[in-house]
């Protein structure tokens, strides 16, 4: 045996074997696996047959006039910049004068500049509120209509700004479906669930989906992982409903492991970190036992992957630990001091972007939530999210962080918690469900931060997030609350899952999935409900598949 194969069935290796895109080690791994796995042998045979069929499709002759059309197109472009009296009256051959060749090149530039670009090309890296923004108390905020600073070119080569996966159900249908966002086509149906899905995280290679399900009105949440291809589902545990700190799912960079937290429904064991290994899916491993640990994000160093976990307390602390050994087996952490490769004091729940050139994390004093959220650790003093970024002058460091909300002064109370997500472009960020009791009032009487609104910005914007980065109030229907936010790699598109309040005991949970195109200046955002959302039921959450975009440096 040459080592374990990722995932229950190595479809990727089988696929790559058809074009000889395997290393020697991978070839040996695959051969060993195939000898014992009838399912994979059938997959290999099906893929081979498919390749043979597709490869034998008949070639079609192009139109006979194609050559003439190309020739005409070249001539038309070549003479587009000439005064009409200098243009030839008939098409020439491919030979041309120096002047006309220059004109053709110039035409490309001009046309390229004038042609209405697709949405993704005009995406602003700095979304700006389209309503008249109120002014925040202490720190003056920048002009919302100012041009965005140094727009980062998005890695948009092939992706179309549509959500890729939408988990839908239940209410009238307890079997949620995973759908293709672009076509609406059902990719797979999952096992029945006892309530609505409230957040989801796609495994980096797109083969598995981790998601949380509200278990009716019981105050419990199920953690599940399902195969996107065949719907096979694993129940990873049942947790007490917690805030955003608990409800955080983190896939490892290679997609083999999922880290998540479980808050003991009985309250006795507190909140602990678990790791699910896709190779041994029936036995998630409890990593911590002290009852005050939360999941941060995966990291990597020269020796392999690290998992950042955070210990809640009056002064929180975060640790980067080896979650699995050299054989890939997940090991519970020993009692006593955490065997950490790195330690960050005062830091809670660090969320690295995929490129690992920026990290968002929390600072402040924490306590268990008391009567409002028994057993749940929240910030009670000076709680706020911070962001640290790598620059040309300095490496990424927690010490170099600044407040994520640049126009908020956090003194006594601050945030208790908030939900935060990175976009797949590694630059976009969104914050919602901002829990700040007695949040400051703005001059227009509204509170800021507002728990009902979504704050959407870009790490390359010097302002980071301000009150002006709130999505339009009209983006979310009256009476609805934002359950989940997914960001597209365009830096301009979001998918909001918004749930409606239940009006009676017999009401079924209802949520709409709204695709928002963020606009700048005084132009209102464009909000498009996903088809079918208006007829009721539960739609969402959505995921923008990072595989649609090339994020490889």
């Amino acid at each position, binding site marked *: 045996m040459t080592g374990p194969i990722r995932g229950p069935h190595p*479809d*990727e290796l*089988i*696929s*790559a074997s058809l*074009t*000889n*895109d395997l290393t020697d080690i991978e070839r040996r791994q695959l051969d060993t696996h195939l000898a014992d796995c009838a399912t994979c042998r*059938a997959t290999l045979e*099906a*893929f081979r*047959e*498919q*390749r043979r*069929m*597709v*490869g034998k*499709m*008949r*070639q*079609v*002759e*192009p*139109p006979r006039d*194609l*050559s003439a*059309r*190309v020739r005409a*197109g*070249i001539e038309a*472009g070549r003479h587009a910049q000439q005064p009409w009296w200098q243009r030839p009256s008939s098409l020439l*051959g*491919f*030979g*041309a004068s*120096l002047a006309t*060749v*220059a004109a053709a*090149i110039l035409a*490309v530039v001009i046309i390229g500049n004038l042609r209405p670009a*697709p*949405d*993704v090309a005009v995406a602003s890296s700095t979304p700006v509120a389209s309503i008249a923004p109120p002014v925040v108390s202490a720190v003056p905020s920048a002009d919302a209509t100012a041009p965005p600073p140094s727009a980062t070119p998005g890695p948009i*080569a*092939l*992706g*179309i700004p549509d959500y890729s996966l939408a988990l839908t159900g239940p209410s009238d249908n307890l079997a949620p479906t995973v759908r*293709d966002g*672009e*076509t609406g*086509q059902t990719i797979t149906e999952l096992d029945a669930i006892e309530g609505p899905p409230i957040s989801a995280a796609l495994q980096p*290679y*797109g*083969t598995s989906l981790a998601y949380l399900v509200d278990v009716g009105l019981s105050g419990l949440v199920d953690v599940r992982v399902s195969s996107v*291809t065949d719907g096979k589902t694993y129940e990873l545990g049942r947790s007490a409903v917690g805030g955003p700190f608990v409800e955080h799912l983190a896939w490892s960079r290679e997609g083999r492991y999922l880290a998540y937290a479980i808050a003991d429904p009985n309250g006795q064991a507190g909140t602990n970190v678990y790791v699910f290994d896709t190779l041994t899916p029936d036995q998630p491993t409890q990593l911590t036992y002290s009852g005050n640990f939360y999941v941060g994000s995966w990291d990597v160093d020269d020796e392999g992957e690290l998992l950042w976990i955070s210990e809640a307390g009056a002064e929180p602390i975060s640790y980067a630990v080896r979650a699995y050994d050299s054989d890939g087996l997940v090991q519970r952490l020993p009692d006593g001091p955490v065997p950490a490769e790195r330690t960050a004091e005062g830091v809670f729940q660090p969320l690295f972007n995929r490129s690992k050139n920026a990290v968002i994390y929390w600072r402040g004093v924490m306590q268990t939530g008391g009567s409002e959220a028994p057993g749940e650790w929240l910030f009670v003093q000076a709680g706020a999210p911070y962001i640290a970024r790598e620059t040309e002058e300095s490496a990424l460091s927690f010490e170099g962080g600044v407040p994520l909300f640049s126009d908020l002064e956090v003194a006594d109370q601050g945030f208790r918690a908030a939900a935060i997500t990175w976009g797949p472009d590694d630059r976009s960020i969104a914050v919602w469900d901002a829990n700040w009791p007695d949040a400051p009032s703005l001059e227009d009487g509204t509170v800021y931060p507002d728990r009902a609104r979504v704050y959407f910005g870009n790490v390359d914007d010097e302002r980071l997030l301000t009150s002006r980065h709130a999505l339009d109030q009209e983006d979310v229907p009256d009476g609805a609350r934002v359950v989940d936010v997914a960001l597209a790699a365009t830096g301009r598109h979001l998918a909001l899952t918004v749930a409606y309040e239940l009006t009676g005991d017999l009401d079924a949970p209802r949520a709409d999935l709204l695709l928002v195109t963020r606009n700048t200046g005084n132009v209102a955002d464009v909000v498009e409900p996903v*088809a079918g959302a208006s007829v009721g039921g539960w739609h969402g959450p959505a995921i923008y598949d990072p*595989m*649609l975009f*090339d994020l*490889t440096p």
Partner: protein
Amino acid sequence: MLSIPFDRRVARGPAVMSHEDRMTAHGDFDRLFEEFSAPIYNYVLRMIGDRDRAADITQDTFIKAYRHIDSLTDVSSTRSWIYRIATNTAIDDMRRRKHLARMDDDEHHAERPDTAPGPEAQVMGVVLDERIQRAMLLLRPNHRQCLILSDVEDMSAHQIGEVMGLSYGAVRTLLCRARGEMRRHLAAEGLSR
């Protein structure tokens, strides 16, 4: 692999291009068109599923190739280069149609493949081809692209990466997903288990 000797003197621009240079460049372009017009047309046709649009996109592809021939710095990459232009041109076309469809409040109808047997199937004239093509048009655009590049054009993951602007690993993953998706669609057509 194509061995058209693109003369890099073209890259110096028209100000220094002699009559002889221009004739060489145009000869190169003629050979490029001769060798790739049919494969590119078929590639786009598989992608789009519409003969007229495929012809338009192929036409635009070669016009762009002519105008940007100086951006081709490595002759050995000619094949990837022309397929990349075709890919981007096809994507632009799909985006534009999608945008227009939304403006027309047409519920994205125009961007969805027409899965009914149409004129294209009649042109192909082969029932099996028709069913395979129908299954292929149900794939996501990027899945369709990489599957065609792999199984029709016989490109390696590295070459597909050059065309699609993706890393080697991303191509392998995308291809795996495409094959899985295609398997289901072929099964629906009764062509796979």
